[in-house]
């Protein structure tokens, strides 16, 4: 299965695929052999939970234990982009 991962800000610079023309982010396709939790996907990308402020799965503010499925869009924001969401939204599990 395949998912799209969007890594914003500093997280994007940690992987190959960072593209300044897209607006300072990295958009990568990730091949997974099975359904994984977001936390496991992050581990595979060598991204620690404490580096991340907001997680969106298919544009829903999400908890790292949510499971990603084929064709999903996973977006991660770095710690230094934390704003607003913590106050307004509960994380979808």
């Amino acid at each position: 299965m395949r998912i799209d991962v969007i890594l914003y800000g500093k997280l994007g610079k940690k992987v190959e695929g960072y593209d300044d023309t897209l607006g300072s982010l990295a958009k990568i396709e990730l091949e997974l052999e099975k359904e994984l939790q977001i936390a496991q996907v992050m581990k595979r990308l060598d991204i620690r939970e404490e580096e991340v402020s907001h997680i969106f799965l298919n544009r829903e503010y999400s908890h790292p234990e949510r499971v990603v499925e084929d064709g999903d869009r996973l977006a991660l924001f770095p710690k230094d982009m934390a704003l607003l969401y913590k106050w307004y939204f509960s994380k979808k599990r």
Partner: protein
Amino acid sequence: MAKKILRVNMEDLTVKEEEVPEEYENLGGRALTSQIIADEVPPKAHPLGPNNKLVFAPGIVTGTGSPNSGRLSAGGKSPLTGGIKESNAGTPFAKTLAKKGIKAIIVEGKPENKDRYYLLKLNEDESDLVHADEWVGKGLYEAYEELHEEFGENIEITGAGIAAEIGASNAGISYTDPEGMSSRYSGRGGLGAVMASKGLKFIVAEEPKEDRIEIKDEETFNEGRKKLAKALAEHDITKKDGALNSYGTAVLVNIINESGGLPQRNFSEGSDDRSAEVSGEKKAEAVQERGGVRPHKCSPSCIIQCSEIWTKEGGEDPVGVLEYESVWALGPNCGIYDLDTIGELNRACNDLGLDTIEMGNTIAVAMEGGLLDFGDGVKALELMDEIYEKTPLGRILANGVEFTGEAFGVNRVPTVKGQSIPAYDPRSIKGIGVTYATTPMGADHTAGYAIAPEILGVGGDADPFEKEKGELSKNLQRATAAIDSAGYCLFIAFATMDIDEGMEGVVDTVNGVLGTDYSIEDVMAFGANVLKTEREFNRKAGFSKEDDRLPEFMKEEKLPPHNEVFDVPDEELDSVWED
């Protein structure tokens, strides 16, 4: 020395100093502007007529050096909404007024000759009104340069621009930034037109030699100041290298776009990947490459420093800050995904004296109406020239979203009480929709912004699609009214709601200045009282709860990608006003 109120009569061209009435002594900022408007302006007065008044008031702690306290409220009856308006700005002009011992400036009446413009000069010990006709029709960037040449560098300026001269409902009030440019604004609600309708073009305030700030209990104040500074320096969001400091408010472009709540092309979709091209991160990189300034403070006491100076390529022609709301309104909401075009549209707004949110929404509605295509930045800039030239089309556009929507036969008109909706689509983010609907200000994101609901005692998590938002919005609006009155920047709330000491710092500094003994509960009650005063003015002006509603299309048109409508029941909206 006791504080004073300056009463500027534009009919007989006199400026009188008045003692502060006892009932105003503990008021400041929004609490004071709204109370004076409620006390002195007939609710049915025409906003541009002789009976409306314009009030400026620095906050309670403004000028004291407490962190992030450089805020100023402007108040009046709004030509855009027809209701009461408080429009809040961060500018060095705020601390200059406070240091002069000015609690409020009340501008009233109208000169007989409606083509005459005046400049109110606030000198060290007296004030006078002088002719300002030579600046009519001139952009504010150039005018402010000339005013600095004429009156020296040690001044702060307030101005009404070309849009205000034509009585436009979207004319804001401009203030100098720390560089002396016209980039700080009481943008919303058309108060610039009220100012110009009175023949007042500028206020020029000299920095006083004698500091007249009064702090009744220095010890309590200093303790509070330190507590607040510590909280702001420690909190992830407000600290150095935090989101606001690193990227400015536009850090929200990618976040809200990813959430599906960033309105695109006049509120027809909630996300578009091209939004990343105008994100805060992209902008911060461009500012650095060009030799602009980031981070930057909008007023002297700011610790957070979310501001910046955006320039053209090569570091030329500084504009000032491009805020999240401005980038969105003039960008994705118009299908424009180019920071240089957005920068030039923002420059034109600052120069003409226009609110960027209302102007961006107006261009988007004009695009919907077929005047130009979505994404056509070149034509959008040409439309700004129509306002410079005061053509009939320019006059239509400068009157804002509803007026333009009617002129071009558009029914997707995103307004509440005549004021257009900012950069969070309430179909995706329902809590803010309740605030848009119910605040006395017309659609306004700052009227009930991100403050921890659990700390305010409303309990539970806030789910974006959940409908029970009345209680949350009520508490947010009360806290906001209190912060706007204290003279603090709204962004302190991120830190003060998470760190108890920070909240104590806010209350201590207010108590220190006033010599009072307010508790946090007293401060919330104070905020509730401000809202009550504002709502009562609106009721007498003709508003009812039927006006506390979002536009019809938001209840019927689903917003992709979540395909939600705004379905918060009317009873929930009305619950905001129940005790």
